[in-house]
């Protein structure tokens, strides 16, 4: 029982347009699945929303620390990650189109490409986090930002307040990466089902819902990128 609600209408045993017993018409089942998915995305918006509220309050309180912390992040990796995710959104969108047109092999290729991009994103993220690990910027016992203080003499920062920025940075990107891992898991299952030819132009709801989820995770990153990386890059 995979508990991820992303793939909502499970495909029961037999093939063909799966009409679950309690739905009068297939169209009603598809609409319900879509509404269920959008409501789930609403809960995700509020889930990330709690963190954005903490980010907003602390950014207003400790702007210097946020600016210095944001400057210490590698902007090229951040931009690369955004590009990777947008490409993955493209392959997902084309994948949904392929499913709607019943092109099975194209669908499988596009889904694999999406998983590839997702993995690339996590890879870049891992590199960034490792770099942070080496520079002792991970909040906790071994946290010190004397190097950042030297790099930004004109911006006085407080060690503890800087830890707030980095704890929010790791919390938000960590939660986003976790959603990315779940997304890749879903897409692996979707690729397996697609490979077995289960999705037809009449029935491809799991692909659409998987696509919605993936696009949502991409939108969250579209906001995370400027809010975490581009706080104050001015010379």
């Amino acid at each position, binding site marked *: 029982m995979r508990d991820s609600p992303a793939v909502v209408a499970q495909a029961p045993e037999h093939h063909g347009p799966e009409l679950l017993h309690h739905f009068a018409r297939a169209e009603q089942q598809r609409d319900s699945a879509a509404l269920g998915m959008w409501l789930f995305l609403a809960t995700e918006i509020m889930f990330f929303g709690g963190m954005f509220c903490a980010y907003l309050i602390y950014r207003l309180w400790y702007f210097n620390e946020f600016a210095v912390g944001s400057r210490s992040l590698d902007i090229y990796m951040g931009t690369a990650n955004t590009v990777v995710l947008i490409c993955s959104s493209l392959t997902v969108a084309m994948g949904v*189109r392929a499913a709607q047109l019943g092109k099975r092999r194209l669908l499988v290729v596009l889904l694999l490409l999406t998983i590839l991009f997702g993995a690339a994103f996590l890879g870049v993220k891992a590199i960034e986090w490792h770099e942070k690990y080496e520079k002792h910027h991970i909040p906790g016992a071994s946290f010190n930002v004397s190097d950042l203080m030297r790099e930004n003499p004109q911006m006085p920062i407080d060690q503890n307040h800087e830890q707030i920025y980095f704890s929010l940075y790791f919390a938000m990107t960590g939660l986003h990466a976790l959603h990315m891992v779940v997304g890749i898991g879903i897409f692996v299952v979707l690729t397996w089902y697609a490979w077995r030819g289960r999705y037809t132009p009449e029935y491809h709801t799991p692909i659409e819902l998987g696509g919605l989820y993936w696009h949502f995770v991409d939108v969250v990153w579209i906001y995370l990128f400027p809010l975490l990386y581009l706080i104050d890059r*001015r010379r």
Partner: protein
Amino acid sequence: MTVHISSNKLNVTIWITLMCLTVITATVSFIDLGPFNTIVALAIATFKALLVVLFFMHVKYSSEKLTKVVILSSLFWLLLLLVLSLADYSTRGNVRIM
């Protein structure tokens, strides 16, 4: 969902615009616009998000009004959380915000 199928040409154009916007927002952040840096960054991010939601997620063509209601209401609730907690933080004793 709707039966709408977006053509590949549309997908690719949206993709290109998103890529350009990413590069723009990254480069613009280096130019000193005073207080407008954040506003510009957020505006570009919102525009990109709109592109993804409307086109990639088929919200623009879906006849279903309910989907739009769900999106708008969840964004409104997020706004509630942010604005009302700001009501406390912005009016605290020594004003920390401009």
